[in-house]
């Protein structure tokens, strides 16, 4: 056993190789899984928002996807052939088997609410704050959902595609300090 070579994808000592396809087959039977496809070997699973938390919990606890790489969002406004406005992306990794999986949730206004996953991965805290700040998607159950990049009193969500690149004048809305005042 000591000289057993390291095999990426081998689950623990004496375990059998759990291929990503096994995980995907199991996911197909799960409620709320709408679609899955691959691009250049990277799998992506589209999940209904009501089943998002249950799916992520199962992936973490039953399939050892122990690492939350990133949470981010895409605004599909004016995107060709797009049917939904926002796509939330959860990038997961299984450090034991060296596998990666992307979970997507499609969202439309006005229901821009998702359950938080900070109870599964504490690192989701700041990622969800960033998505809230930049895209305005709320995370129910998040303990401290404040803006993380923009000033707290900022009114818009600047990475939305209907927000102008140069802003709406916020960057010029400051008091002027003159020589006489300083």
């Amino acid at each position, binding site marked *: 056993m000591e000289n057993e070579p390291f095999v990426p994808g081998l689950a623990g000592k004496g375990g059998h190789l759990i291929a990503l396809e096994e995980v995907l087959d199991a996911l197909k039977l799960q409620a709320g899984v709408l679609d899955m496809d691959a691009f250049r070997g990277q799998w992506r699973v589209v999940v209904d928002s009501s089943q998002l938390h249950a799916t992520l919990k199962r992936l973490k606890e039953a399939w050892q996807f122990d690492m939350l790489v990133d949470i981010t969002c895409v605004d599909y406004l004016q995107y060709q052939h797009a049917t939904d406005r926002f796509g939330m992306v959860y990038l997961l990794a299984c450090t034991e088997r060296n596998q990666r999986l992307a979970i997507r949730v499609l969202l439309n206004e006005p229901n821009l609410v998702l359950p938080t996953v900070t109870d599964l991965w504490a690192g989701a805290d700041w990622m969800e704050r960033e998505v809230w700040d930049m895209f305005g998607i709320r995370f129910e159950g998040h303990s401290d959902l404040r803006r993380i990049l923009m*000033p707290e009193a900022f009114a818009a969500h600047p990475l939305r595609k209907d927000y102008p690149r140069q802003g709406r004048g916020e960057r*010029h809305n400051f008091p002027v300090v003159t020589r006489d005042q300083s």
Partner: protein
Amino acid sequence: MALELPDNVVVTKLDALASWCRKNSLWPMPFATACCGIELMGTGASRHDLARFGAEAMRFSPRQSDLMVVAGRVVMKMLPVLQRIWLQMNEPKWCISMGACASTGGVFDTYAVVQGIDRFMPVDMYVPGCPPRPEQLLQAIIDLQDKIQQGGTLAGREFARAQRSRVLVDLSASGPCGPDERAN
């Protein structure tokens, strides 16, 4: 009646003497937020040797410095901080806007970046470049020394008007939040 003076005596005005002292011991406050800050460090280091112009004593406390060097882009979240530090500096004080970003926003024409600090605070000298070479910053300091020599008075009369009309600038009311009716 001409006054007979020995050769080793110079006659000048006290105002000019005060300015001469001030211009040769500038204490920069390095407000370095981007790559211009690296050039600022290079200017202070041995190769370019800012000490030749008496401005090598960089202080990270506004109370101990009289030359604000804004080196790099200033985002809207940072501007109230910059203004507060400027207000905390004691007179006489001067400001150098170093590089394209501090002066105009540079290539960062986005919602988050202030398009030139001179919109919101006084600037004495602009340094072009992206980033400027240390020689350019040195030239700005030399030019600023000329400016200081021309303007200063011993009693600080040039600041008297500022003292009279000094009002408390309420930076807490700065609202970088809602849309502004002023043009972009």
